[in-house]
């Protein structure tokens, strides 16, 4: 149980920071592609008999870079590229799992997450990845803001747009790996979008939004964890449903507040 709490908080930090970029830069679909492609790495881990999360780390970063480079340097439409990587990554995972000897018993926990089964070794990995994410965002904050707001203007004033974009995709890949144990490959996209989307309704400051969405993520995960325990439901799915419901509540709340207090006029 203590591992579950720690895993929840570590997951909330990663998705709180990176989810903000996913939401404001509107790169939800490519994040979904990265998340699903990671299953190829899980499968490869099973096949090689190595910790699947560790293999997924390298596999996911590679597919994120692949998606980013192919969609930027060719004239293929970006969503087409994402769709292909998305499906091929998952298909590879299925083939790899099929080829692995023995019965892949905990496969489901990678697909749908099981926060109650996170081993301490994976917690350490999650902590390291969180630290890398926080450090890179701290260093490149200004650049990530520039490419999220206006890539074209960034290019003109000398922002290394492609480098920053690919770096951001790698950070999304790391976040996916952090989240796999908690909500699973299929549901990762929920944690990358919902906490940040809720936070966005209450602040116009990107840094505050990161802080807020981290806190919101912690609340979502703990609520989901508690409910899944009380009702004996799958933890990953319960966390996502709690998040979805609370998103709707916050949306309605925000709309009501906005209606009562019209947007203040400038002085």
């Amino acid at each position, binding site marked *: 149980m203590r591992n579950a709490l720690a895993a929840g908080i570590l997951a909330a930090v990663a998705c709180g920071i990176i989810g903000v970029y996913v939401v404001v830069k509107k790169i939800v679909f490519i994040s979904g592609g990265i998340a699903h492609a990671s299953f190829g790495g899980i499968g490869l881990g099973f096949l090689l008999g190595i910790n699947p999360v560790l293999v997924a780390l390298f596999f996911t970063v590679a597919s994120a870079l692949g998606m980013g480079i192919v969609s930027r340097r060719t004239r293929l439409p970006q969503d087409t590229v994402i769709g292909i990587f998305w499906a091929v990554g998952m298909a590879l995972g299925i083939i790899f799992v099929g080829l692995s000897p023995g019965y892949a018993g905990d496969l489901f926990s990678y697909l749908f997450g099981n926060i109650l089964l996170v081993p301490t070794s994976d917690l350490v990995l999650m902590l390291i990845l969180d630290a890398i994410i926080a450090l890179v965002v701290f260093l490149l904050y200004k650049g990530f803001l520039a490419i999220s*707001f206006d890539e074209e203007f960034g290019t003109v004033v000398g*922002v290394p747009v492609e480098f920053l974009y690919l770096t951001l995709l790698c950070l999304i890949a790391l976040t996916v790996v952090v989240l796999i144990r908690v909500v699973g490959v299929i549901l990762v996209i929920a944690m990358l979008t919902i906490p940040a989307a809720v936070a966005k309704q209450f602040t116009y*400051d990107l840094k505050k939004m990161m802080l807020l969405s981290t806190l919101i993520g912690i609340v979502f995960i703990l609520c989901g964890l508690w409910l899944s325990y009380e009702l004996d439901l799958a933890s990953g799915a319960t966390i996502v449903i709690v998040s979805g419901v609370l998103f709707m509540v916050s949306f309605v709340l925000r709309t009501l507040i906005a209606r009562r207090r019209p947007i203040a006029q*400038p002085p």
Partner: protein
Amino acid sequence: MANKELVRLEDVWVHYDHVAVLEDVNLSIKQEDFLGIIGPNGGGKTTLLKVILGLVKPSSGKASILGGTPQRNRKFIGYVAQNSLFDRDFPISVQDVVLMGRYGRVGLVKRFSEDDKRAALEALQNVEMLDYKDKQIGKLSGGEQQRVLIARALVAKPWMLLLDEPTTGVDMPMQTEFYELLARLKHSMSIVLVSHDISAVSVYVDKIACLNHQLYYHGSKEVGPDILEATYKCPIQMIAHGVPHRVLKEH
């Protein structure tokens, strides 16, 4: 002060999917120019600006800024893209939008300094938007946003300002104020203004060029009738695109 050449386009052709958007365009823009480029939508106006900035590579011909490649020297140009490009709902304050213009001076990892922040406030003051510095960008009207984007272009102290359809979505009283702002700025930098709004442009600019795949450069605009006559020499396809002649006659 020598009237130095800032931008030069030589025999520039641009094709998108084998369709020519710019055909053999030659253009020279000098330090003291206030140039209006008019022409129908789809005539290649935005493409022309992007060629100058090195965002679009010509299929043949050459673009240069201050004698160097656009990629190297575009930092000397302040670019104001078409109004509608960014997300109105983006969580960013007016001041942070303007600060982005300083990026080229600061580099990848370093933070913005006090100097950068002071420059951002000065630029906002220059466009009379200082009071709005802490507002979220989407809370401003179209005309106010346009001013902020000009401040963002000015904050790097450019030699030239490139404006792409700057009055789209700006109401009439704000448009007049906006052109007066440009009239003030033109004393300290070269300005290139792209628009399909021929009437407004011809009042304020000093030189006019017409662009409809090919560029017809009319040189300086001494008095009203000159530009009138010159624009009539525009190719018929531009007139056929619905630019009303009577608008020009008013001058």
